[in-house]
């Protein structure tokens, strides 16, 4: 089966200057990840592992130093290719406070992607806005509100609704539940699984929280310092991790369901350098 979206052998280097010297930082080094139809792929890793940079390359916000993005198996090369890709792939950002325009009413913000892609007339757009709001479990009157009048959970639902407006086949979600309270996070995760099942969406879900990845994803890709250290079905990676890094990451997770086993970082050996009198 051809993947809907694939980043193949993606490399990204940034150049920084420090004290007049040029330094090359390899943020992503030869990473290949593909998402099939209806599949939820998790990208997990700690700050600076390159997961966000890689996902931004997939949608063209960032340009790869080398490597190819493939859309339905065909390399994305021209401006028209990118436009077609963005018609199919939408990106949901971590922070709905900064990704929604503070002076634009929710209804306008939701209709904007339709205007950009030239979809529908005024009444059709209004209808699609109502549909999208109900899809994410919000009432119609929300359309008249400003982002500042909504709670964090409502705002993240609006961001999701906005990404769904043009009926994409793939959603890239970058840490979209990390800023939310646990009970709101559960509501958004439940919504994502419902949307995935009813719309057959594919998700590329980026998170540093392995508990969320374990719950939501079919397949997981573990990244460290710009490279993939392990990938596979979640049951396998979480049940029998092959790399030491994944094992360390799993051992570092606080988990109220786990009994008696100390976390890796809590063992004296993992508690780097603390010297107590």
């Amino acid at each position, binding site marked *: 089966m051809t993947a809907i979206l694939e980043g193949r052998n993606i490399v990204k280097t940034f150049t920084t200057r420090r004290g007049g010297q040029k330094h090359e930082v390899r943020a992503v080094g030869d990473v290949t990840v593909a998402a099939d139809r209806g599949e939820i792929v998790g990208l997990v890793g700690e*700050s600076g592992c390159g997961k966000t940079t890689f996902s931004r390359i997939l949608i063209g916000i960032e340009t790869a130093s080398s490597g190819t993005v493939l859309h339905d198996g065909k390399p994305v090369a021209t401006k028209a290719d990118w436009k077609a890709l963005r018609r199919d792939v939408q990106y949901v950002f971590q922070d709905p406070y900064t990704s929604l325009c503070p002076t634009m009413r929710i209804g306008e913000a939701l209709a904007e992607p339709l205007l950009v892609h030239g979809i529908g007339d005024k009444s059709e757009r209004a209808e699609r806005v109502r549909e999208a709001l109900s899809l994410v479990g919000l009432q119609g009157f929300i359309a008249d509100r400003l982002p500042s009048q909504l709670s964090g959970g409502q705002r993240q639902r609006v961001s999701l609704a906005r990404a769904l407006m043009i009926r994409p086949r793939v959603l890239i979600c970058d840490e979209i539940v990390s800023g939310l309270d*646990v009970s*709101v996070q559960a509501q958004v*995760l439940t919504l994502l699984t419902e949307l995935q099942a009813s719309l057959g969406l594919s998700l590329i879900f980026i998170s*540093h929280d392995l508990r969320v990845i374990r719950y939501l994803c079919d397949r997981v890709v573990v990244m460290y310092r710009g490279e993939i250290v392990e990938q596979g079905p979640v049951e396998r990676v979480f049940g029998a991790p092959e790399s030491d890094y994944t094992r360390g990451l799993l051992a570092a*997770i606080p988990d109220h369901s*786990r009994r008696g086993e100390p*976390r890796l970082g*809590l063992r004296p050996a993992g508690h*780097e350098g603390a010297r107590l009198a």
Partner: protein
Amino acid sequence: MSADPALRFEHVTIAFPGAEGPLKVVNDVSFAVGSGQCLVIVGESGSGKSMACQALLGIVPAPGAVSGQGIFWEGRDLLKSSARDWMKVRGAEIAMVFQDPAAALNPLMPVGRQIVDVVRAHRSVTRAEAERRAIEVLNQVGFPEPERRMRAYPIELSGGLRQRVAIALALACGPKLIVADEATTNLDVSIQAQIIGLLRSLKEELGISIVFVTHDLGLAPEIGDEVLVMYAGHAVERGPVREVLDRPSHPYTIGLLNSAPTLESSRAHPLKPIPGQVPALDEIGAGAPFRSRCPVVVSGRCDSAKPDWTACGGGHFVACHRFAQDGIGGVQ
């Protein structure tokens, strides 16, 4: 809890003026922390957990008013303290570690100097002595090469190292109680584990008491002896950590545990989110704070009276009408 707790927070209310009367962001909350013990306060946004912490340091922002039976610290009532007395306690006996070390540290000053300043504010020592103390506490928190790297500015340090500096700053005057407000929230899991390990060793080896505030119940068994669950300004459940996690007895605590994915969860066993959202403080009124989202409301009770504490055994208490009426079977 030890027989003579170092800190007793007794029936404390923190109110802000609202359009229709005072809004109680902390409503008649009590807790105690024994010396060398750690109390974990768990709650979501708006639960009042951070405000309770601020009351412990006398830094509740105006026009908030703190009232109640008292905040007893080693026998003294801090609620009756003058601003001058507070200055002696704050930073010296009770110190705070904030959520965001980038915001808690002065960006224009090397980190070592910030510790030196704190030491000299509380103790009459020379700069050289204060510097030795800074190096000592940086060593204690596992800050590498403190003699050299204490000259670094906060921006030159990683998030984990910045949080170590923030903890060193709190340790500088040898406090007996550290209040950590979401101190590990924005850190990567491996760094989070290190910081929790560090706090735990401070507790176990130096006998420092800790109030550890978090929204993540999963962290409670890592560091806590006791846990207090807060919802919308109210304390709803408290007890030894393992008791509360093994036999959660308040519908909110149960809902919170069912909402949190664990390493064993998968889509085959869907999460059970708590429906609805936290009510506005002026909507709570006289009844049980969780009633608008509660699956097991006792009609005629929950909307008219605040539940009292009911003992669940093993030092574990819950404030719930349903539990008081039907026991654990009624809430599950």
